[in-house]
């Protein structure tokens, strides 16, 4: 028999309210408690309008704490509510299993402890990038979180498209609010220079989050990467050679 209490994990896409699918909207509506981790004030305002009992998980970002510690704090907060018998929904910007450790761990724990779990996909930054830049991943595509790429040093195939996520987080502890990250981008550049020529052009992409503003796409030669202006939404697309 399933225990009282349930966990549903959903993705919201990037444009506040405009990319929320009907199944996600109904999952939010059915829940007693909504936790969220989103990137913009518009989405936060929208969440408060559609759910009477919502709490941001971003308060778990403690200055100086490691990303793992912050994520564990989020998991503890989510699981405490589920164990208390609450029907919990957790909503993230984008897609709920891409670059989001807390969802995976919470779902694993909830399943193991016999709670009902559900997950509904959302539009990811990768989906928005494919649409806005006109890339078809069917022709070959590799996806990496940038930090993981630098540590694992895989054999990159430069003939395919490569999408690098979380550019800003290279060498960061937690979300410390700083804008660009020159030192991290310098490390990335030196790794990529083993495979690509300096002048190979890549796009720094930021999905559109507002109804009146389009996506931000900057094309730069890879050699100039450390000079690029990036933020927490920046993704790098390196087209195949």
């Amino acid at each position, binding site marked *: 028999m399933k225990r009282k209490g349930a966990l549903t994990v959903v993705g919201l896409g990037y444009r506040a309210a405009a990319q929320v699918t009907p199944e996600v909207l109904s999952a939010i509506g059915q829940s007693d408690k909504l936790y969220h981790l989103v990137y913009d004030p518009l989405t936060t305002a929208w969440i408060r309008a559609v759910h009477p009992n919502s709490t941001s998980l971003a308060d778990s970002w403690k200055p100086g704490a490691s990303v793992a510690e912050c994520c564990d704090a989020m998991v503890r907060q989510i699981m405490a509510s589920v164990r208390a018998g609450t029907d919990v929904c957790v909503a993230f910007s984008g897609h709920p299993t891409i670059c989001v450790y807390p969802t995976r761990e919470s779902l694993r724990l909830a399943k193991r402890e016999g709670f009902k779990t559900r997950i509904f996909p959302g539009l990811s930054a990768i989906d928005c990038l494919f649409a806005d830049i006109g890339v078809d991943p069917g022709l070959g595509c590799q996806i990496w979180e940038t930090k993981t790429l630098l540590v694992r040093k*895989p054999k990159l195939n430069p003939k395919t498209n490569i999408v690098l996520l979380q550019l800003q987080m290279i*060498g960061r502890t937690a979300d410390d609010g700083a804008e660009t990250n020159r030192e991290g981008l310098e490390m990335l550049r030196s790794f990529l220079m083993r495979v690509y020529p300096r002048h190979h052009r890549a796009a720094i992409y930021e999905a559109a989050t507002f109804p009146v503003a389009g996506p931000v796409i900057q094309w730069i030669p890879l050699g100039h990467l450390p000079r690029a202006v990036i933020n927490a939404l920046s993704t790098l697309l390196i087209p195949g050679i």
Partner: protein
Amino acid sequence: MTVVGTGYRIASQITPESLARIKAADKFFYLVADVVTETWLAGLNPSAENLTDSYAPGKSRTDTYNEIVDRILAPVRTGLHVCVAFYGHPGVFAHSTHEAIRRARKEGVPARMLPGISAQDCLFADLGFDPSDGCQIFEATGFLVQKPKTDPSCALILYQAGAIGVSTFETSALWNRSALQVLSEVLSKKYPPKHRITLYTAPHFPVCDPIILRISIARLPKADVTIATTLFIPPSKEPRWDDRMARRLGMS
């Protein structure tokens, strides 16, 4: 012109921004994989026109794609606001949508693609897989023909394994079983034959669960594969780990 995606599950994965474009269009085209979605879409806009009849058994898919692009662009040229809906994500494994947008823009018509929930998004969710850990994505035919370099310490996703080497359109559930033997042999060179892979089919209907089968590479030629099946091949080797870099990045 706007190209939108309807998502994978019938009616429940469309985004409000895409739905709004469908309803507001002067001329609406759609190309989806099932009758229920067709019925639902046809009811959203009186000008709805199904593109499915551009496909015919034995007809080359390149001819079909070109015909679809021409059909979409005809009303665009007369100044109408055209919306085209494809199932899943309209830019993933869809040559004609990217081509229609390129040509419309070339002719000076503003064209935009809005993303949709793809089979890949459903796979990430249902298998609980985070692609940011590293993942390589290929269309199965391209994987066999172009022989791209891949890294077995990183997950591999192969699409359209049921349609390998078939350039026409067929009505059967699996278009080419013999190619699965070839695929199995090629994969066996990179992975141990007993390596477990996942055959994933995203759910179309609200009452259905995804179909998730775990088999060994050696069993692939006999497995229950359809054109809607995606192969997920987990890493067979431990990934490298650069300790010095991990320390520099604060990851250890």
